[in-house]
């Protein structure tokens, strides 16, 4: 029992990081009713954005974290335009965007000499920019589709593959790490036996702060009102004059920025960045949003702490081999007793 305080700290700070990730996840689900499985890849790229800022550009960590969040947010918007929007409503701009994206990929992955490679990459990026603007300005899509629920899931899995492959191409499959001494390592003593390191403290504080900001954003601002309106009914919102595409882009930005923040923080805490790092948190995040109630932001935050604690306590008092088994047992239990999740409500009430 002596190690209980330490185990609670372990569970708490990891739950906090998981909450950041899961809130963005559940936000997109709440608004669009799609599960964005590429959230894990956005998480990974967020970590690598900060990595580039710190190692290649030599920026300070405090500046790199917001930059990485913005980077991940923009990536998330792009992801929406490439993987999800064409499924909702296809525009000619969307097709141009896709064409540019393919050219960009060819430019990034191909093995040509310096001017050719850069030329193709820049051309691709320019075409994408044009496509993006066209797509945004288009009033009447080529067609509005009613695609099955499975389609966005599949296209987000595809997006994950592309993003992970690009990261492997860029950084290699091995583990990268932030330079040592970026952050003090001397732990603070809570009790004689329980310690928390400065980076874990940062994770905890920053996560709680971002949770507060998010809840204010959703509940107290015009933008939050628009997001909630679209979650309730996209068609009605359109009739009321809400710029639905713009609000969806904002939603993806917030979701991506949160995932990016979680990526940087966990990357820093474990000092281990690799292209496949999104996989584990992806699965944990999925459990969290189902347990918390799909689309419920507060529920996701609470469930994240619950899952964090269960993971830690099952190791501490039962057996480390069964850690994930306990998490999924919780998932099944919740689904059996309350299929809408612990904090889940019906769609109308949720909005």
């Amino acid at each position, binding site marked *: 029992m002596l*190690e209980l305080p*330490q185990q609670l700290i372990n*569970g708490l700070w990891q739950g906090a990081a998981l909450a950041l990730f899961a809130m963005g996840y559940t936000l997109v689900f709440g608004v669009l009713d799609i599960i964005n499985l590429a959230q894990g890849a956005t998480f990974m790229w967020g970590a690598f954005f900060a990595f580039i800022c710190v190692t290649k550009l030599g920026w300070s960590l405090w500046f790199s974290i917001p930059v990485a969040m913005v980077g991940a947010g923009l990536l998330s918007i792009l992801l929406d335009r490439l993987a999800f929007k064409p499924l909702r409503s296809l525009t000619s701009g969307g097709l141009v965007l896709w064409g540019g994206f393919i050219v960009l990929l060819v430019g990034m992955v191909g093995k040509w000499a310096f001017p050719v490679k850069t030329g193709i990459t820049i051309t691709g990026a320019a075409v994408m920019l044009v496509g993006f603007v066209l797509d945004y300005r288009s009033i009447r899509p080529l067609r509005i589709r009613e695609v099955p629920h499975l389609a966005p899931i599949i296209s987000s899995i595809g997006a994950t593959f592309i993003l992970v492959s690009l990261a492997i191409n860029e950084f290699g499959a091995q583990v990268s790490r932030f330079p040592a001494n970026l952050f003090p390592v001397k732990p603070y003593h809570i009790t004689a036996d329980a*310690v928390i390191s400065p980076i874990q403290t940062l994770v905890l504080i920053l996560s709680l702060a971002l949770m507060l900001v998010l809840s204010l954003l959703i509940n107290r601002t015009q933008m939050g009102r628009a997001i909630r309106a679209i979650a309730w009914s996209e068609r009605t919102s359109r009739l009321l004059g809400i710029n639905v595409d713009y609000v969806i882009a904002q939603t993806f930005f917030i979701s991506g920025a949160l995932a990016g923040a979680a990526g940087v923080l966990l990357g820093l805490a*474990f*000092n281990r960045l690799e292209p496949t790092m999104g996989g584990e948190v992806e699965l944990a995040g999925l459990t969290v949003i189902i347990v918390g109630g799909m689309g419920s932001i507060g529920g996701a935050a609470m469930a994240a702490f619950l899952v964090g604690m269960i993971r830690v*306590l099952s*190791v501490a008092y039962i057996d480390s081999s069964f850690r994930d088994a306990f998490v999924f047992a919780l998932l099944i239990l919740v689904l059996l007793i309350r299929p809408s999740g612990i904090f889940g409500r019906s769609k109308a009430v949720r909005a």
Partner: protein
Amino acid sequence: MKARFFSFPTVLMLLFVCFAAIDVSSASAASASSLSGEIPIGAVWSMTGAAAVYGSSQKNASELAVDEINKSGMLGAGKIKLITEDDRSTKEGAITAFDKLIKEYKVVAILGPTLSNSAKAADPIAQAAKVPVLAVSNTAGGIVEMGDFIFRDSLSEMLVQPNTIRETKNKLGYKKVAILYGNDDVFTKGGYDAFKKALNDQGIQILATETFNKNDSDFSAQLTKIKGLKPDAIIVSALAEEAAGIMSQGRQLGIPDSVPFIGGNGFNSPKLAQLAGPAAEGAITGAAWLISNDTPGNKAFVEAYHKKFGANPDQFAAQAYTGVYILANAIKTAGSSNPTAIRDAMAKIKDMDTVLGKFSFDAHREPVHSPVVQIIKNGKFVLYK
């Protein structure tokens, strides 16, 4: 009745006898013109794919050894011709490479393949063709058991770990330990089995056995539990990346420096100290070879390797380098480039001077030489004293 005399099986048997006779005569013809011209030796390394990091140092070291042997005139008028194939770190690649080497290049012996997994798929081909195989990096069980033409110069985990435990126990006097291992990987699980047996044999109490999964990055729950049990040492069977995470998190949670992390072959990577930084200080592991060994020819090998490739050799390079010398020695003793003669000569190797130390094969074609125990000091592996 007359027709029966030349029945089909009989004809077939006669044919076989004829072919066998031709085979024997051609083989003896080869040995008559022995050790002149080129002696083709195959090498199968993982030069691309997951194990490429090991394959490249094996390729470098084997080329270095062949150059040295050909220059020194060790084989008289004979020259070794090394034919290197890439198995892309896959079983299929290894099978294709073995086929090609045996049928197309008619090699007299094969070095490799890099991975135990590939060896299990490809070695039977060489066994069937009676071409000796010398594995230089396979440490899993069930390799030499595949047949009497399969040898290895790489010590298995089962041989290295007991030595590590014995030496560290003698010096540190620990009585109770905790174990942490990856339970979803053949290699780390195998390392755990070897450690567990060694610990039981030497009467060391195991306080707790904790597990983790491949690609886990958080070990704090397991380590907190271990910390509460106050072990004298922590045994870790993990690959370098996970081991680095375990060490940094363990030290951060306040496991004192007097409790060392002791590991298996997975620790044998410069990456460990690189990733874990100061937390890797004092980590102990067993190994087949150490760069600062004072074994015969080791210094010259390290210097020659560094000069030629601009990097220090690792254990995999040393074992591949030794492998070429073992084959050359067997060819010289056999006085022939007949694969069976080479196999027989190789099986008799005793107390040969190599960079790994005094080297012998036991009755099961397993290597016999003393492993070393090393410790990380100032970010580098040095001999544990």
